[in-house]
């Protein structure tokens, strides 16, 4: 059995909105092992954003336990969680969130700048390696505003990889991209999965479930289905079958 990366035990998260208490998560439990590619799906209001925030250590549950790589997160303070995010998690956002007017290399370096254990030379070396992995070895010195959406998302993925995280958290990572570029990004995620990365892909697009190894569906703060996908569809094949747009 592979190592447990994430273990959720009866996770609940309530928000106070005015005088009312909103129950965003009402007892969610699951375990994710090393090397899983999990899609978490749900319509808006299903609690997937809240779950994503908690999984990303940006938020803490009201009750229940969350272990990330064996570390209990619920009782951690703000600064400890920041350090944990820096070492264990790589984020990929829907809108890329790259620093403007900054080169790809500098964007990728960013997480390592907040890790004082990494020297300047190692920082550049690792950032370069990460950019090579996402296929941008010829765009390292391009500024973020000189790149296409797909390229920007690749830079963001490289930034998520650079600190060698145990978990990559993607939040609607293909949401802003056209179909063809979306599939090319999915191809990249599948490649990373093959290399043994643990990936959680949060989306509301049901199509994407067929490309992952496991699919969790949330509704009203509860898990309604949790299925393993034995017949993983290759994103590369879909990508190749798409007509090349040249109009």
């Amino acid at each position, binding site marked *: 059995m592979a190592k447990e990366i994430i273990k959720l035990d009866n996770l609940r998260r309530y928000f106070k909105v005015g005088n009312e208490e909103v129950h965003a998560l009402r007892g969610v439990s699951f375990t994710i092992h090393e090397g899983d590619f999990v899609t978490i799906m749900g319509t808006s209001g299903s609690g997937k954003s809240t779950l994503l925030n908690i999984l990303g250590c940006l938020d803490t549950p009201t009750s229940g336990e969350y272990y990330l790589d064996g570390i209990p997160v619920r009782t951690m303070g703000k600064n400890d969680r920041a350090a944990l995010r820096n070492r264990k998690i790589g984020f990929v956002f829907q809108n890329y969130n790259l620093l403007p007017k900054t080169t790809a290399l500098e964007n990728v370096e960013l997480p390592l700048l907040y*890790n004082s254990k990494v020297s300047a030379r190692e920082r550049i070396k690792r950032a370069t390696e990460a950019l090579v992995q996402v296929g941008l070895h010829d765009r390292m010195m391009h500024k973020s505003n000189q790149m296409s959406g797909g390229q920007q998302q690749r830079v963001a993925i490289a930034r998520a990889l650079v600190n060698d995280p145990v978990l990559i958290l993607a939040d609607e990572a293909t949401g802003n991209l056209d179909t063809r570029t979306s599939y090319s990004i999915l191809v990249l995620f599948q490649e990373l999965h093959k290399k043994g990365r643990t990936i959680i892909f949060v989306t509301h697009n049901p199509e994407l479930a067929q490309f992952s190894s496991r699919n969790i569906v949330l509704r009203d703060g509860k898990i309604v289905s949790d299925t393993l996908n034995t017949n993983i569809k290759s994103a590369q094949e879909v990508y190749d079958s798409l007509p090349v747009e040249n109009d």
Partner: protein
Amino acid sequence: MNLANLFKIALKALANNKMRCFLTMLGIIIGVASVITMLAIGQGSKQSIREQISEMGSNMIMIMPGTDVRGGVRQSAEDMQTLKPVDYESIRENAPHVVGVSPNVSSAGQYVNGNNNYPSQINGVSPDYLDIRKLTVEDGSIFTERDIKSAAKVCVIGTTIAEELFPNGESPVGKVIRFNKIPLTVVGVLKSKGYNSMGQDQDDIVLAPYTTVMKRVLAIDYIQGILASATTEEHTPQAIDEITEVLRTNHKLKETDNDDFTIHSQQELSSMLSSTSDMMTTLLACIAGISLLVGGIGIMNIMYVSVTERTREIGLRMSIGAKGRDILAQFLIESVIISITGGVIGVICGCTAALVVKGILHWPISIQAYSVILSFVVCTFTGVFFGWYPAKKASNLDPIEALRYE
């Protein structure tokens, strides 16, 4: 998180907004430059006033006989006969804070040399008089103590007298001129001092041994006044106390008796003038300080806007592992870099402006080291103080909301 990385991050963020950065700095630049220029002008004029006063002899002390009422008539000080040559000698020996002392007896009369004549005064003094009045002998020399003992018929003349009596330009030294009927040998000519601030010709002067004036000109056994100089301007009050002590002992005055002499010094004038220019300096510094404050508020304003504008960037930094204090440090460093860079440019501009004022307007300028240091300290403080609030606000942002901020 080490400091070098934070600096790198802050510098990068500033480089992305060069124009805004420069405009923010402008407030600080103008503030610092005006502090330095204003203080340089203020201090310069203060120094020039001090120099003018010390030309006149800022440590000079004048001792006059006291006035008295005799039979209902107030007597003029010159007619009082309370000061004697022995008082002069006692002061010379017994007042340690007095460096130079000279009696002063004078008389008006006509100087004659051949066909030329000129009305002036004769001043009976001792050689110390030169030091007290900051005079120097240019040609020849001053008379000696021996001339004083023997009441020798010698004199030292100012350039105005020299020009009037010797219009052909020959050296007066060694020549004999006559004051009224008394022949006097010229032993020296004083260096020209020009007119003083009251419009008096300081070169219209003849110095002779006081004994000569007392015995041969006026035929009196008292002196009209004593001039003394304190070791420094600051020691003037001690010197005055010592002189008072000596004179009261000499005059055998009882505890209850009033002084039968009066003592004046230049200190009141000096302190009055320097307090005026001190006030000017304070005023200028206040104006400059206010502009520095406005510059600081400019920094706060821009940093505040910058925090709002960069909310998503802050959210991103937090999500990839920046702690609250990293964000705080980044924004603080940004504002301190702005203020210190502004400070450096301001110092350069201020010094240049001061030199330009000196070069074009010929105002006395004195750039103060303390004003440069002060501006720097204030700049750093301004950066930290006005950067703190926006930085604190940035560091307290919730990463979830910051990431979602539109």
